[in-house]
C-alpha cells in the first residue's frame, strides 16, 4: 500500500517537474508591450551563449537601443517596433527552428540575421522560401551561391568580401616594400575565408608566401608557430585568428619577438574590451582590421559617436555583462536594422518585394556612414579600416576610449596616422 503510494507520488513528481519546466519557460517569454497599435515585430536569432556570445550580446543591446530610438520617433509607419529574439547558443543547428518559430508562431513581420556567417547560413533557405527581406550581420559571402535578391549584408568588405576584407591592410604595408609574407590562420570558417582573400591579395602584390599554416582552435600556446614562421624570415606576417589565437599570438609576439615589419591583418578579438585591456602594451605595433575606432575623423559617421556614448552609459548604468566599449559591433548592428526601418518607412508598407527593391537601389545614410549595396547584397565598396595600435601604456581600458591608441591607416579619407614598423613601436 505505502509502496503503491510512493510509487504514485514519484510519477507525479516527474510529471510535475516536466510540467514546471515547460510553464517556467513559458513565463519567461516576452509579452507584447501594451501599446495602442499592433507592433511591428522584428525577429532574429542571436548568439547569447557560446563562442560568439561576446559579439551577440553587444549586437543585441545596440538593436534594443535602435528600437527605443525608433519608438521615440513614432515607430515604423506609425506602428511601434518590438524585437523578438532567441539565443542560438552559437550553434547553427538551433537556427532553422528559431526562424520557423519567429515566422510561424510569433508571426514576426520582418526578420534580420544573427551574428556570424555560419549562423546566417541556416536561416537563408527559410528567408528565401518565405520570400522575406533578410538583413545579414557580419556574414562572409553567404549569398554567393543562393544569389537571393532580398539579402543585404552589413559587413563592409565590398562586393568580394574575402578579398576586400584585407585589401587595405595590404595597401598599407606596401609602403614597407615587403617581398615575402607569412600567413597564419585559424582552422575555422571566418579565418579561412580571410586567409583565402589575403593569399589572393599577396599574390596580386607579387609577394612570396614563405610560410602558410593553419592552427587548431584547441592550441594552447603559440610560441612554436611564431618561431616556425620567423625562421622563414618573412617581411610581413598576416594573421587571421579568433579571439583565443589572437591573444595567444600577441603574447607570443611579446615573448619571442619577430623581425617582420608588419604583423596582424585579420585578428578577431583584439577589438574587444576584455582582450584590449588584458593585453595592453603588448598590442603596440600590431596593425589590424577594425570597423570603428574613437578617432576624430570618425565623426564622418553621423551619430555614431553619440550612439557609442549611449551604449557605454547604458552598460555602466545597468552594470551589464557585455563589452564595455562596444566599438566593434554596436554601430553595425544598429545600422543593419536601421536600414530596414528606413526602407519600411520609405515604402510605407510591409511589402517585402517593395522593401527589397528600395534597399537595393538606395544609398542610405546611417551611423556607419553612407551605405550602398551591390551584387549579392554585399557593400559596393570596402570600408574595412586598418588601424595600428600605438602608445598603449598600461592595462587601463579607458585609454582605448580616447583617440590615439588606434591610428587609422586607411581608408585615406579618414586617415589619422602612418604605418610604422612593428619593431619601432615595441619598447
Amino acid at each position, binding site marked *: 500500500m505505502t509502496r503503491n503510494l510512493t510509487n504514485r507520488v514519484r510519477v507525479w513528481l516527474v510529471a510535475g517537474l516536466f510540467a514546471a519546466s515547460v510553464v517556467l519557460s513559458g513565463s519567461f517569454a516576452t509579452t507584447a508591450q501594451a501599446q495602442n497599435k499592433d507592433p511591428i515585430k522584428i525577429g532574429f536569432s542571436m548568439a547569447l551563449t557560446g563562442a560568439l556570445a561576446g559579439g551577440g*550580446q553587444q549586437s543585441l543591446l545596440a538593436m534594443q537601443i535602435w528600437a527605443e530610438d525608433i519608438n521615440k520617433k513614432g515607430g515604423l509607419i506609425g506602428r511601434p517596433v518590438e524585437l523578438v529574439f532567441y539565443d542560438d547558443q552559437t550553434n547553427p543547428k538551433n537556427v532553422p527552428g528559431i526562424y520557423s518559430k519567429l515566422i510561424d508562431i510569433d508571426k514576426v513581420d520582418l526578420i534580420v540575421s544573427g551574428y556570424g556567417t555560419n549562423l546566417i547560413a541556416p536561416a537563408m533557405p527559410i528567408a528565401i522560401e518565405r520570400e522575406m527581406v533578410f538583413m545579414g550581420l557580419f556574414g562572409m559571402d553567404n549569398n554567393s551561391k543562393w544569389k537571393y535578391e532580398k539579402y543585404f549584408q552589413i559587413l563592409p568588405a565590398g562586393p568580394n568580401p574575402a578579398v576586400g576584407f584585407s585589401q587595405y591592410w595590404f595597401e598599407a604595408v606596401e609602403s614597407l616594400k615587403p617581398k615575402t609574407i607569412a600567413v597564419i590562420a585559424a582552422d575555422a570558417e571566418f579565418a579561412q575565408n580571410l586567409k583565402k582573400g589575403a593569399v589572393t591579395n599577396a599574390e596580386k602584390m607579387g609577394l612570396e608566401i614563405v610560410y602558410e599554416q593553419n592552427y587548431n582552435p*584547441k592550441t594552447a600556446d603559440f*610560441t612554436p608557430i611564431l618561431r616556425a614562421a620567423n625562421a622563414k624570415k618573412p617581411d610581413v606576417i598576416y594573421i587571421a585568428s579568433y579571439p583565443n589565437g589572437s591573444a595567444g599570438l600577441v603574447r607570443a609576439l611579446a615573448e619571442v619577438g619577430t623581425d617582420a615589419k608588419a604583423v596582424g591583418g585579420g585578428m578577431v578579438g583584439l577589438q574587444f574590451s*576584455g582582450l584590449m585591456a588584458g593585453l595592453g602594451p603588448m598590442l603596440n605595433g600590431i596593425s589590424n582590421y577594425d570597423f570603428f575606432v574613437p578617432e576624430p575623423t570618425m565623426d564622418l559617421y553621423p551619430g555614431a559617436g553619440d550612439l557609442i556614448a549611449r551604449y557605454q552609459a547604458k552598460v555602466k548604468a545597468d552594470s551589464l555583462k557585455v563589452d564595455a566599449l562596444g566599438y566593434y559591433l554596436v554601430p553595425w548592428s544598429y545600422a543593419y536594422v536601421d536600414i530596414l526601418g528606413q526602407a519600411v518607412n520609405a515604402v510605407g508598407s510591409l511589402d517585402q518585394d517593395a522593401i527589397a527593391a528600395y534597399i537595393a537601389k538606395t544609398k542610405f545614410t546611417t551611423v556607419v556612414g553612407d551605405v550602398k549595396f551591390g551584387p549579392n547584397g554585399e557593400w559596393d565598396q570596402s570600408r574595412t579600416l586598418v588601424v595600428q595600435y600605438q602608445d598603449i601604456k598600461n592595462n587601463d581600458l579607458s585609454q582605448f576610449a580616447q583617440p590615439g591608441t588606434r591610428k587609422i591607416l586607411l581608408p585615406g579619407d579618414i586617415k589619422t596616422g602612418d604605418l610604422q614598423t612593428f619593431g619601432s613601436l615595441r619598447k
Partner: protein
Amino acid sequence: MAVFIDLLLNALVIGILLGGFYAALAIGLSITFGLLDVVNIAHPTMLVLGAFIAFLLNSTLGIDPILAGVIATPFFFILGWLIYQVYYNVFEKSGAESLRGLAFFFGLLFIIEVGLVIQFGVDHRLVEAPYIGESWNIIIGEEIDVAIPFRLLVAFVVASIATLAIRAYLTKTFFGRAVRAVAQDMMALRLMGVDPIRVKRIAFAMGVATAGVGGALMIIVLPIEPSLGRLYLGNVFAIVVLGGLGSISGTLLAAVIIGVAESIVATFFGPSWAPAVSFGILLAVLAFRPEGLFGKTAGAH
C-alpha cells in the same frame, strides 16, 4: 642547420613546459577519474570556474593569480565534498556503474557554465601579472637561442610541485595509501577499520580542489571564457588515460609527451595537425598497451 637546431631546441623546451601546464589541468581528474573511477567530465569546466575566481581576485584586489588559486582551493574542496555526497547517495550506494554518473556531470557542466555566463558575461578574460608576456632568453650559440616564456615556466613549476606533492601524499601517508587501496579493495579497508566512503569523499574533494590552482594556471597561459572547458575536455581525459589510470606520475609524463608532440608538430609540420597527432599517439598506445603507459591493471576497469 643552426635554424633547425634552434627550432628543435625551442620546440622541446616549450613542449615540456606546455606538458606541465596540461598536467595541472589533468591532475585532479587523475585522482577523481583515475583512482576513484568517478567520470567527472565537469572537471575542465570547474577549472574554468577556478580561472574566473583568479580573474575576479586579480582584477578587483590585484592579488597574484597563483595566490588567488591557493585562496580558492578550500572552496573547491568543499564543492568537491558536496558533489561527492550527492554522487555517492545517487549512484555508488546502489552499486551503479561509474558511467551512469555521466549524465549527472553533464548537467553540472551546463549549470557551472551558465552560472559563469550570468556572473561574468561572455567576454574573454585575462589576468595581469609581472611574469606574463615576458620571457627569458638563453643564448646558446650563433643563431641559436632559447626563449622561455615566464607564464609557461610558472605553470610548469607550479604544476610539477603540485603533482609531486600529491604523489608524495598518496604514497607516503596512511591516508594516501588508503585512497589508493579504496580503488582496489574496499573490503580490506573496512576490515582495517577505515570508512572507505569517507576516504573516497576526501580524495574526490582533493581532486576537485586542484581546480583552484589549475584554473589560475589556465588564465595565466591563455584567455578564458565560460565555454572554454568543453574545448579541453578531450585533452585532459586523453592525458589521464594515456598515463595510465591511477598513476599520478604517469599523468605528468603523459602530459609532457603530449605537450612535446604538439609543439614539435606545430613547429615542423603544421599546427593544425597537432590534435590528430596527440590523439593518434593515444590510440597507438592503447592498441599496444591497453592499460596506458604506466597503468597497472590490464585493460579491464
